[in-house]
């Protein structure tokens, strides 16, 4: 029976076709200076980023890992207890090969503040900070997190302090927002609406009444009616005082975008063998290709494996039934095996969808761990599993 034969060979859910991803070749390649991990939320993306960074550091590279909102235990495993927006040395890393590991969590508000301070005089910065609109935007602006991750990346890269920067992308609703950040901002800045709002502030007025001239009167009235005059005036003041800064923002966002396309960057997709995660990874692979971003491979986390490949689901379940009375324990063990095997087959089918769509993307399958990572030892084990790809 053909299905039987096929399943007899399936000991892991790793798809068969794709080439093997060699993560060591990536993290040890001196010409690669940025590794970006992306993928859906809840697939172990941050853990993967941290494990790769640790591996690079212990192989001798001066490494920093930029994480976004890591789970508490993972942060603790790297000795990160506070969110202070600056790289902190990770203790107990083996530095005998000459490398080091720093880790930081992105504080988007603080990053935004730093950018403002760097591009305006203190008086103007104070004015911007006091604006209620700035306060709202810097902490909740849709895309601020993505944009600030780009900003931080460009800051880290500019220092030449690091051989390798490993970036964990934000757990966005759509992970693609990360790539969209520069264009999003550019679109916003080029928007007609923004220019309209700039008019009154530039000419000294604080009201939006100037909006309501000629053909815009209807629109202006609608806008004012919905948002309220005070709000509009806040936005207007905010935008005009931030105008000079915005120019710099955009240039740097565009520069970072180009860096992401360059030879020095390696993108890694992170997924788990689950339909949503694989769908996201497939979409992302297409998007990276469309944006000419260098995709180096797929890390498939939480892949289950069967340790007793000789027994198929059907044989195990059949035997379990016949053993129920006399050998209940063995029957239970066989049922556990059958459930695991079924799971492996299902995962394999799901993972195959990606392999079929992107047959040339190298793949590293990481076995499922019984427990989450709690310390550097655990992180080291994940790194070893990543490198020991099969």
């Amino acid at each position, binding site marked *: 029976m053909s299905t039987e034969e096929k399943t007899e060979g399936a000991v892991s859910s790793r798809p068969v076709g794709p080439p093997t991803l060699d993560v060591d070749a990536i993290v040890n390649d001196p010409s690669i200076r940025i590794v970006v991990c992306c993928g859906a939320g809840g697939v172990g993306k941050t853990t993967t980023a941290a494990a790769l960074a640790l591996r690079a550091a212990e192989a001798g590279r001066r490494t920093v890992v930029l994480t976004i909102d890591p789970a508490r235990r993972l942060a603790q495993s790297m000795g990160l207890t506070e969110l202070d927006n600056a790289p902190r040395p990770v203790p107990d890393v083996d530095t005998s090969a000459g490398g080091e590991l720093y880790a930081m969590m992105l504080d988007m508000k603080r990053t935004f503040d730093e950018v403002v301070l760097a591009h305006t005089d203190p008086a103007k910065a104070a004015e911007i900070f006091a604006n209620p609109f700035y306060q709202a935007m810097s902490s909740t602006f849709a895309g601020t997190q993505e944009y600030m991750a780009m900003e931080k990346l460009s800051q880290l890269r500019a220092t030449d302090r690091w051989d390798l920067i490993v970036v964990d992308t934000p757990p966005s609703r759509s992970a693609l927002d990360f790539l969209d950040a520069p264009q999003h901002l550019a679109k916003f800045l080029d928007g007609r609406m923004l220019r309209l709002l700039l008019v009154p502030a530039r000419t000294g007025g604080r009201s939006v009444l100037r909006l309501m001239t000629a053909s815009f009167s209807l629109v202006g009235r*609608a806008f004012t009616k919905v948002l309220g005059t005070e709000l509009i005036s806040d936005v207007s003041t905010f935008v005009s005082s931030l105008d000079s800064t915005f120019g710099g923002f955009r240039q740097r966002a565009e520069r970072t975008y180009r860096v992401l396309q360059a030879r020095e960057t390696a993108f890694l997709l992170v997924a788990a063998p689950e339909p949503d995660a694989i769908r996201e990874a497939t979409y992302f692979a297409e998007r990276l290709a469309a944006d000419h971003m260098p995709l180096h491979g797929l890390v498939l986390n939480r892949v289950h494996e069967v340790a007793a490949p*000789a027994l198929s689901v059907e044989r195990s379940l059949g035997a379990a039934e016949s053993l129920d009375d006399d050998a209940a324990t063995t029957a239970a063990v066989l049922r556990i095996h059958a459930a695991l095997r079924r799971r492996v087959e299902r995962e394999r089918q799901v993972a195959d969808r990606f392999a079929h769509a992107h047959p040339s993307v190298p793949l590293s399958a990481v076995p499922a761990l019984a427990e989450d990572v709690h310390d550097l030892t655990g992180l080291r084990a994940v790194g070893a599993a990543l490198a020991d790809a099969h």
Partner: protein
Amino acid sequence: MTGKGGTGKTTVAGALALALAADGRRTLVVEVEGRQGLAQLFDTPPLPYQERRIAVAPGGGEVRALAVDVEEALLDYLDMFYRLGGAGRALQRLGAVDFATTIAPGLRDVLLTGKVKEAVTRTTRTGDRTRAYDAVVLDAPPTGRIARFLNVTAETAKLAKVGPIKTQSEGVSAILRSPMTAVHVVTLLEEMPVQETADAAAELAGLGLPVGAVIVNGTRPPLLSGRVTQAEIRRGLVAAGLPADRTTVAGLAAEAGAYRTRLALESRLRDELTGLGHLMLELPLLPDGIDLSGLYSLAASLTKQGVVAP
């Protein structure tokens, strides 16, 4: 319905909408993240910004679904409250809608939750002010963003101190903090989702948002209680006429060992969740993944655990 990414939040939202629609009731399940997860779940074409019937509930009820689009919601809102149909379109052409929802994410959330409020409070024209829906299930953003999403007043208070946006957000906030609302958190018996469940429940409670049930998804009945020796496995395999070579015996023992480790962890995590003091519901792992019939079986499981529309 919230939960960490990957816990099955959308699936559980769908199952709950089905369960609550049982026996001739009508529910609405709403999606706000533009992922078309509900259409996939119910195996229907992508949902428009329009309430569509997507399933018949057990005992003859009806589940409708709606995918809320922010821009459409804003235009809707302009039309409804300001009769600004034409101006609304003009705003859209100008990029103002994009602008407004981009620069003011609070506004975005006011619009999304506002649409939910509208559906919750809608009454049918005929009859004596009967509510259009017996229940509205919102497939909300994940645990990491849920508090900010539902705490609309705080967000908009920073932006609009007076005016219709403020009024609207206060209305939404009142409903969300009333006994009409329950925020359910979906989790798996895995460390990170459990941690996030605890964090989100505390954060929501701190904001005065009523936490409903903790819904443990993907549970499995324990198959094995005690230790098991390789000798025992070998004897059983021989008795059943199966291969009993060393690789197979050791392999099965290793699988059983990993299973027991997992079970012990799950039991510890279940205790942690119980300690949160919220109602706990459990949904079984469906061995063949989620399809439409699986969804109905999850709904039946919820009904069996006492889930009914008020």
